[in-house]
């Protein structure tokens, strides 16, 4: 029975992944991360993603505090934050977050404060979706491993 649970969980996991790719939330770079995970580095994906969460939340706080400042004019600084966000999002396959950052950067390059504020709202929203979905993925993966582990003590 436990083996069947593991199979069902794997099917659910694949369905969720397919959904995320279809929605453009993740792209094939995420698959690259998964391919790099093996017995010698069994937590590679979650390690990298957790670094991403940590850095992204810091960047979002910085972006918000920059824009909330009435005297704000340092669009160069904002551009630096956005470049970092674009780079890291691209590296983990966070496609939609990356695309919103690019649009944000365009508004910043044009010194368009209202546009930047709108982009920030959208970015915070997209980041929230991404984080929730990735947590869901990791939880399902944990459950699947547990289910498979009980029945098959030797995991592939």
């Amino acid at each position: 029975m436990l083996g069947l649970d593991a199979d069902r969980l794997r099917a659910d996991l694949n369905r969720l992944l397919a959904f995320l790719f279809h929605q453009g939330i993740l792209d094939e770079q995420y698959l690259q991360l998964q391919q790099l995970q093996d017995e010698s580095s069994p937590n590679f994906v979650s390690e990298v993603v957790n670094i991403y969460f940590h850095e992204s939340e810091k960047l979002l706080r910085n972006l918000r505090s920059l824009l909330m400042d009435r005297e704000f004019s340092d669009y160069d600084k904002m551009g630096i934050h956005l470049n970092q966000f674009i780079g890291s999002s691209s590296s983990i396959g966070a496609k939609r977050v990356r695309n919103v950052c690019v649009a944000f950067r365009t508004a910043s390059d044009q010194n368009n404060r209202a546009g930047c504020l709108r982009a920030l709202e959208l970015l915070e929203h997209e980041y929230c979706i991404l984080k929730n979905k990735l947590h869901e993925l990791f939880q399902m993966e944990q459950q699947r491993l547990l289910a498979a582990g009980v029945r098959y003590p030797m995991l592939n």
Partner: protein
Amino acid sequence: MGNMATQTQFHVLAIDDSLIDRKLIERLLKTSSYQVTAVDSGSKALEFLGLNGENEDEERNSSVESVSAADEDHQVGVNLIITDYCMPGMTGYDLLRKIKQSSSFKDIPVVIMSSENIPSRINRCLEDGAEEFFLKPVKLSDVNKLRPHLMKGITTKNEMQSNTNKRKGSEEIQSPDRTRPRYNELEVV
């Protein structure tokens, strides 16, 4: 077995100011069985290589002539350098120039990575001595392209040794065969 393994492993020095990209390139390289040292700036890379000052002769007591990337006489044996382009302070391009200007390290293959696809930037790096230019995010298929550049370093060294020993060119064992790693030559240390 452990000692033999580290002697025959290629050592890659990776430079990137982004922690995530450092983790990624480290994993990509380790998956390909390379030994990796990852640092977050060009100046740290130069420090690691022992190139601190303008005049490197001041830094080095012995004037060891290095003709090959895999030079075991160096304290630090680095076979390839892979660096991000956009970094605060010293860019990857600045680092490339410094390495190519160094008598000890100019023969080490250098690869540049960048998230931006700017042809003039790519051309400039390649013209100034970079072996490859990878667009980020870097993939396993990119890292697979590194091996020929690393094997070239070994081959050059063996050609030098072979030429001093004998001149019989009947067996072409020196040609860079990218499909077959020649472990017997790698173990000559």
